[in-house]
């Protein structure tokens, strides 16, 4: 089982919903990235998702777009993100997933990218513009080297394809809470429960983590109540790295969310 898989099963064993925290590498600055990631870890993140900035983040809402721009202005490259992971590895064992668009990977070279991921200590990849049917070669490389390639499933995904995605993903299945892009406010769809169920039915061993627009403990609890094995919090945390908040503020926010991951379910 991969480090990611273990993080989910540990959480489950502790009757917690796993907390996946997203930050953009190099925001507010490359030196402070490390501090921000560590704040999340101290706050209780089970998995860290680290964004690799791209010029055209088509699946992202305003907050993560702004973070991308900031990161690129700070000169962040895929290479530098890998170096950041290498450094993190000297401080934490938390599973690390790189979230980044396909072109920089393609440009880096899929094979070289996967190799570097492994060697720096990356555990998994999320490539938001690489749907299952386009991910053949990258998936093969990931499988061969033990890197998790996380697939996304959405409320619009037909049942059969949802099952395929649940089976094809590794690490966990990323359940998108609603049609749209990252960030913003989601009234979590009641349909979510059905989505979690169909994913579990298709691949019972695979953890299911819900993301997009999850910003408050209430929403975390709601998703917990719907049976999600994990929740992914992105824009809400990235916003703190953009608005001048300290790493202590970030840690506190993460801690509150982490608390919600253990609490009674069904509220909010």
């Amino acid at each position, binding site marked *: 089982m991969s480090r990611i898989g273990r993080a989910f099963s540990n959480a489950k064993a502790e009757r917690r919903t796993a907390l996946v925290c997203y930050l953009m590498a190099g925001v507010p600055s490359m030196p402070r990235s490390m501090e921000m990631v560590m704040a999340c870890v101290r706050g209780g993140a089970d998995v860290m998702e680290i964004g690799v900035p791209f010029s055209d983040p088509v699946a992202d*809402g*305003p907050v993560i777009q702004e973070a991308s721009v900031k990161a690129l202005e700070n000169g962040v490259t895929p290479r530098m993100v890998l170096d950041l992971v290498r450094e993190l590895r000297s401080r934490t064992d938390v599973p690390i997933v790189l979230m980044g668009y396909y072109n920089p990977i393609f*440009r880096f070279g899929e094979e070289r990218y996967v190799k570097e991921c492994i060697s720096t200590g990356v555990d998994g990849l999320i490539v938001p513009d690489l749907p299952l049917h386009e991910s053949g070669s990258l998936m093969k490389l990931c499988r061969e080297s033990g890197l998790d390639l996380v697939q996304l499933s959405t409320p619009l995904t037909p049942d059969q394809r949802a099952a395929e995605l649940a089976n094809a993903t590794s690490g966990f299945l990323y359940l998108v809470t609603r049609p749209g892009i990252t960030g913003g406010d989601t009234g979590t769809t009641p349909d979510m429960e059905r989505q979690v169920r169909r994913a579990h039915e298709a691949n019972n061993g695979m953890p299911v983590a819900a993301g997009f627009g999850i910003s408050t403990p209430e929403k975390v609890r709601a998703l917990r109540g719907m049976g999600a094995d994990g929740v992914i919090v992105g824009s809400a945390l990235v916003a703190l790295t953009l608005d001048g908040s300290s790493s202590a503020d970030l840690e506190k926010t993460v801690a509150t969310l982490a608390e919600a991951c253990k609490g009674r379910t069904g509220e909010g």
Partner: protein
Amino acid sequence: MNTRFGEYGGQYVPEVLVPALMELESEYQRAKKDPAFLKELDGYNVNYGGRETPLYFARRLTERCGGAKIYLKREDLCHGGAHKFNNVMGQALLAKRMGKERLIAETGAGQHGTATAMAAAVLGMKAEIYMGEKDVARQRMNVFRMKLMGAKVHEVRSGSKLLKDAINEAFRDWAASVENTYYLLGTAAGPHPYPTMVRDFQSIIGREIRQQLIVAEGRTPDLLVACVGGGSNAIGTFHPFLDDRNVRMLGAEAAGEGLDTEHHSATLTVGEVGVLQGCKSYLLQDENGMIKEAHSVAPGLDYPGVGPEHSFLKDIKRAEYVGVTDKEALGSFVLLSQVEGIIPALESAHAVHAGMREAAKMSKDQIVVITISGRGDKDLETVFDMGVVQ
């Protein structure tokens, strides 16, 4: 349906859009075999759009070049003023058939946005157009045209605030609205099935050229020339002739301030393969895979990507692609106006330059067809401000 042209094309989109693209593909497959759909489209093409457009023998331009006979395919006479009509009408009717009531589209120069607004008006649908803030500022009149026809225009303030960013924003809208919304993409790029579908709708250009030239000259042309932004008017011109091995094809890209500068849009000539906005193709990008800003005096060529079929045609050497600078394009903008009384779009002026250059080298019994993708009225202000005339 094949989603690729060689290695190019594909469907590099967020998972949330995958079902919509699949629905679109199958609906399009059905429509293009449905005589009722084809008849309705043909009706709008003829009675509303003004097709067929003339294939005009440019006597004075030919004399000027002193080589091959030059014919101009007059897409500038389409309703709305550009070939954009062909694609928009086809897709809008498809959207209607799919029961979508809302069209969204990106636009750079405003031509595709205007065409979309127009199609929405005539079919009684809603249209919302995404346009970069910088383009809104420099294409004031096209913004007004869209609003006049009842479309809503969203100013895009992200990224470079240009066409590419308008496309991103349209994709973002679509990701959230895909159930009731049709994304009417404006060129033969983007994820499958757009490159194929847009090419099919634009192929009316090449089909007409073939028929008209048979009538005028009894044969196929020796060379076809068209400008390449996203590549739709070029592929529409080329595609019906792909199997005619004796027909050469030349795409004119924007070399902007020069291919040796950072200010151009010559994706095929000097770009490198990558993935942008749904498809694999040649791109302008830096060594880290970040997309570069494109530049051209012609707003419709100002795009750092290109339709995947052109990448394929380039690799297999079925078509050639050359860069034409801003200055050269401005020169032929003025020349065609003065010699033929046809003010071409600045985009089309790129094709005119490339076509004239080739024609001059060819013999008098050969034939060059240049597609005039649109009229230049939209560009008058730009050219005027440059002080090119007087």
